[in-house]
């Protein structure tokens, strides 16, 4: 090994270590990983339990009526009793949400690529899209019920798709366009075609923007599906189930349905997070360093 190699190897090693500084305290990786996990999620878990206990305790202490705010214990027992009904409704709603999400995101990606590729398209479309994005689109639900038949899940998917479309499209377009000018000069200097620039620079650059918007969209899609259901349609979905149980003063049942919606929403979000880590390993590595 030459002197140079030795120096480089040394700096290499310190470099690797410093990259994980803070993550790996003396004592090895595995305990640190557990400690990190605990350190990261423990506070959230503790405060969650505290909130539930406070909720239970305060509703008991002040004798708050069930129709105002049910106790967590009542909600849980209703959740277990109505397990089959409430999950079946949940999955029907999830189907609408995911279907609409798929349609909306696909349409958004196609539009974004076109907007990044053709200036004319971008200049014509984006102002309209931004204006449309500022409109409360859920208000369209009764109209979509009319267009796509109120009984078809398609009418709910349409609402979800439109709600999801704009944030994803606007963010992704931004990611595709807001590329460092010197990266574009670099691509031009090696005589790359615009398709190559799109593939090797613009699209990877847009991925963090895309995933940020998908995380927002995953939550929006369930909200939009449930709100669209409030405007009418089949009774065996979450939105209608919540309305019906509330009308019958069965508030713990309504809350159990809300719990299902929340579990589904969180799961959807976590799946997107997982996909983000899968598609952008470089980005996660940036984060672990911070």
């Amino acid at each position, binding site marked *: 090994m030459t002197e140079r190699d030795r120096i480089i190897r040394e700096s290499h090693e310190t470099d690797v270590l410093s990259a994980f500084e803070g993550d790996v305290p003396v004592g090895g990786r595995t305990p640190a990983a557990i400690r990190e996990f605990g350190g990261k999620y423990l506070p959230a878990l503790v405060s969650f339990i505290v909130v539930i206990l406070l909720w239970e305790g305060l509703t008991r202490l002040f004798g708050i009526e069930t129709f105002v705010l049910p106790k967590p214990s009542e909600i849980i027992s209703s959740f277990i009793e109505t397990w089959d009904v409430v999950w079946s409704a949940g999955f029907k709603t999830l189907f609408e949400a995911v279907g609409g999400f798929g349609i909306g995101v696909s349409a958004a990606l196609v539009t974004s690529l076109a907007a990044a590729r053709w200036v004319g398209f971008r200049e014509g479309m984006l102002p309209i899209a931004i204006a449309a994005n500022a409109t409360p689109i859920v208000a369209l639900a009764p109209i979509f019920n009319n267009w796509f038949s109120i009984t078809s899940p398609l009418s709910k998917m349409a609402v979800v798709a439109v709600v999801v479309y704009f944030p994803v499209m606007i963010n992704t377009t931004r990611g595709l366009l807001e590329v460092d000018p*010197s990266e574009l000069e670099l691509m*031009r200097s*090696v005589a790359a075609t615009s398709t190559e620039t799109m593939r090797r620079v613009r699209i990877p650059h847009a991925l963090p923007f895309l995933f940020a918007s998908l995380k927002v969209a995953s939550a929006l899609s369930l909200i939009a599906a449930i709100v669209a259901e409030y405007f009418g349609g089949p009774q065996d979905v979450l939105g209608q189930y919540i309305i019906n149980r509330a009308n019958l003063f069965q508030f713990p049942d309504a809350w159990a349905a809300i719990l299902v919606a929340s579990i589904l929403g969180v799961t959807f979000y976590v799946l997107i997070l997982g996909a983000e880590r899968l598609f952008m390993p470089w980005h996660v590595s940036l984060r672990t360093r911070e």
Partner: protein
Amino acid sequence: MTMVVDARGVGKVFGRGVEAVQALADIDMVMETGDFVSLIGPSGCGKSTLLRLVADLLEPTSGQLLINAKTPSQARLDRDYGMVFQSATLLDWRTVRKNVELPLEIMDFAAEERSRRAEEMLDLVQLDLFADHYPWQLSGGMQQRVAIARALAFQPSLLLMDEPFGALDEMTRELMQQEVLRLWGETGISVVFVTHSIPEAVFLSGRVLVMTPRPGRISSEIVIDLPPERDLNTRESPRYFELITEVREALRRGES
């Protein structure tokens, strides 16, 4: 002998009408194979603009500019030059190796040839041990060395460098200058080097073209007659200081 760079009366105007700005005027510049030429001048003197004309990132508005006896556009399409920017401009999502391979991918080199050349280039810039690191894991100087490896990976005949060491600290900068001279000696490539550091221009170049602003012109040309082997001793030689003074005075004459 064909000229690597042959500029005759080249000018560049940005904008039109009342807003038009004459960035460059009457640029004559000739470079032969293996020349190392620095462009030096204050900010706004058009030195980066001139480099971008050579690179066909901008088009001249007057005069004639030939690169390897071709139009700049043809030279770019033929991949006659490699370019190094002020910031390393590495793609965050690619490892060092994949960054060096980027131009080779675009030029449709086979995978084996790509990795062979990337290895070779990383050896050349002495970063072979960092091939699988991501750019953020490297120091500024190392990142710039990756950018140089990338610019050389497809063996262009001309290397264009736009203030490549401007963001580096003085010690790293001197090491990088030594490195560039070594690469220049080993590859026989021609180099156009834009800088605003007088010692850097003198230490590196065979010739220094001094530019003055409004409009950007080449006001004088200083031949650096230091011995071709340059090292720490060069930096301490009396002739080195004389040449630095000469360039500084040329710059000052341009200001008045």
